[in-house]
């Protein structure tokens, strides 16, 4: 109960931080960084449900992210659809796709699951790269502005509002799922799937739900970020981008929703901070990744939490 309370307090703190942050951002570049953090954080919060709570590794979430972006880009730029309709089609389409593939894929365990999700992401990225008549190919395509009800979303500060609200919403959804009966049951048996099954819990249903939700999170922000960036390339759907998402979740702290947010913030900020190192950037980035995982294997937020609360779980 206490733990649950602290989680909902966290949501309030997050909302407050997001509301006050604009005061500290000196120019649009910083708003842009904040927006990218929010975009990544929303994907990471969704992915954390899957990795941290359901114990399933996905190395293909950039595939969903890229699908969202490209469905929106293609429908609005090539076929003149209203952006909101394109966004809805992307989300519903990916939700269906995720639902269909979820059962056979989630039957797989551990590294086989990682392989299958990796394959799914790769196929998406290969199709996007090859069908250049539709997608502009490896060079990418220009995406029109997001317009809804005659209102045009443009500029880093306007988008900041959108992404901040969405992030709070995403965290709220995630907390609700975690606190749902199935989520609680899974945590109660310390993540043991078999024990939960023995206790009569439909773990597969839970995993499918979480898989679909996390895919839709990725699609939604994938689509919005394409409009926001005004440009999209197949890199958005690449394997490395999937790995980045997983890294955010793990560095921030698995099974910690706020950890996912912190992880997204760190991994988005790091390349900006390290950009002055030029040739050494990759080395330093790799070393930071390694050392943080070696010394805080449970991730930043849970490790720090444990330190402050005296190590209790």
């Amino acid at each position, binding site marked *: 109960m206490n733990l649950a309370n602290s989680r909902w307090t966290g949501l309030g703190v997050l909302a407050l931080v997001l509301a006050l942050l*604009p*005061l500290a951002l*000196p*120019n*649009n*570049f*910083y708003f*842009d*960084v904040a927006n*990218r953090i929010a975009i990544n954080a929303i994907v990471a919060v969704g992915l954390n449900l899957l990795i941290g709570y359901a114990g399933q590794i996905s190395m293909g979430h950039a595939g969903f992210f890229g699908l969202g972006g490209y469905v929106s880009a293609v429908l609005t730029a090539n076929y003149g659809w209203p952006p909101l309709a394109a966004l809805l089609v992307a989300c519903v389409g990916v939700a269906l796709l995720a639902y269909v593939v979820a059962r056979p894929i989630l039957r797989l365990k551990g590294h086989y699951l990682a392989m299958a999700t990796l394959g799914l992401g790769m196929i998406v990225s290969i199709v996007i*790269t*090859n069908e*250049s008549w539709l997608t502009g*190919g*490896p*060079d*990418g395509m*220009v995406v029109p502005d997001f317009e809804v009800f005659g209102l045009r979303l443009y500029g*880093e500060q306007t988008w900041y509002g959108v992404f901040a609200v969405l992030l709070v919403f995403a965290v709220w959804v995630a907390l609700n799922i975690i606190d749902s009966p199935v989520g609680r049951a899974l945590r109660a048996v310390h993540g043991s799937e078999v024990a939960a099954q023995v206790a009569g819990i439909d773990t597969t249903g839970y995993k499918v739900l979480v898989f679909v939700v996390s895919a839709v999170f990725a699609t939604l922000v994938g689509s919005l970020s394409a409009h926001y*960036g*005004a*440009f999209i*390339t197949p*890199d*958005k759907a690449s394997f490395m981008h999937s790995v980045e998402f997983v890294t955010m979740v793990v560095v921030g702290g698995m099974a910690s929703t706020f950890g996912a947010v912190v992880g997204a913030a760190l991994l988005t900020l790091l*390349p*900006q901070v390290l*950009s002055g190192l*030029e*040739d050494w*950037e*990759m080395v330093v980035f790799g070393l930071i990744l390694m050392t943080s995982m070696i010394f805080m294997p449970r991730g930043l937020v849970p490790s720090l939490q444990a330190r402050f609360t005296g190590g209790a779980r």
Partner: protein
Amino acid sequence: MKQSRMRRSALVLAASLGCLSAALAAEGPIKIGSFLSVTGPAAFLGDPELKTLQLYVDKLNAAGGVLGRKLELVHYDDAGDAAKANTFVKRLLEDDKVDVIVGGTTTGGTMAAVPLVERAGVPFVSLAGAVVIIDPVKKWVFKTPHTDRMACEKVFEDVKKRGLSKVALVSETSGFGKSGREQCVAVAPKLGVEITVDETYGPKDTDMTAQLAKVKGSAAQALLVFGLGQSPAIVAKNVAQLDIKLPQYQSHGVASKEFLQLAGAAAEGVRLPASALLVADQLPGNDPQKPVVVDYTREFKAKFNEDVSTFGGHAYDGLMLAVDAIKRAGSTDKEKVRAALESTKGYVGTGGVVNMSPSDHMGLDLSAFRMLEIRNGNWTLVP
């Protein structure tokens, strides 16, 4: 209530600081922004580009700068990732407040920057190849390298000169290769060339014999390979392996000494369109480009002890075009610099003689490309 007042005072403070820094900036250096793919798959392009920019910014500063002001190079490495390019361009525009941007190693990175510079209204000279960058013309965007469409035209012209017409096209599925393939397929009929085989390969592939076996069994009379970096060298080796005797053309994407080293004997007899820079010492004395390319070659070799590539040359041209425009504009006023860039006439660079116009933001014609043939492991001019 309290919050909004706080916000207002913060805004006032920020605005006054902004005015202050703008006033200071007028006396400060001229900021040249740049984003290049110094690491990642396009590193072999971005690396000489950055070296060239650093070398010549230092040289210009040593000679007293431009308009009495020093130049300052602000550079970020996009690692060949268009999304990173997009962020760094925002940083250049919003945070560093650069006066002009010279950069964009890849077409993807450049195109990710285009919507931003168009909105911000900052002159941007791209160093990437594809024709989409300047066709249709974009108000603030210019480029220095020859386009892929020109490469196709130059190659097909040479094919026709040899009395041939059926060409097998093998292209890479990278941005460079895809765009090149589309342009070649589009211009082929206009030049009376028929593309009889159209195969592709991945930029990281290690073996292309399967694709080339199909070329071998076809009626094609010549082979054109369109790719960047190491993969065209693998194709050339595979061609030798399968003993394909067709005249072989490569794109301007292999115009560096590296290709000669990687392909070795397999590169003998291969032809490619490239700028005069590669054959600086072979140019006749009256060639207008001779002094420029000889000079650049000497400076670059002296500083880095490396062979020049045309890619570094593109960066040289980009920087010099921008500096030239700033001088003629007499200020760093963005619109004036842009207008000056657009009215560039008769500028002699490593890539050719540049004549820009409101409808042509590259300003090179087909004469800027020389047809080279690889003989005895070196470039030679095809007369």
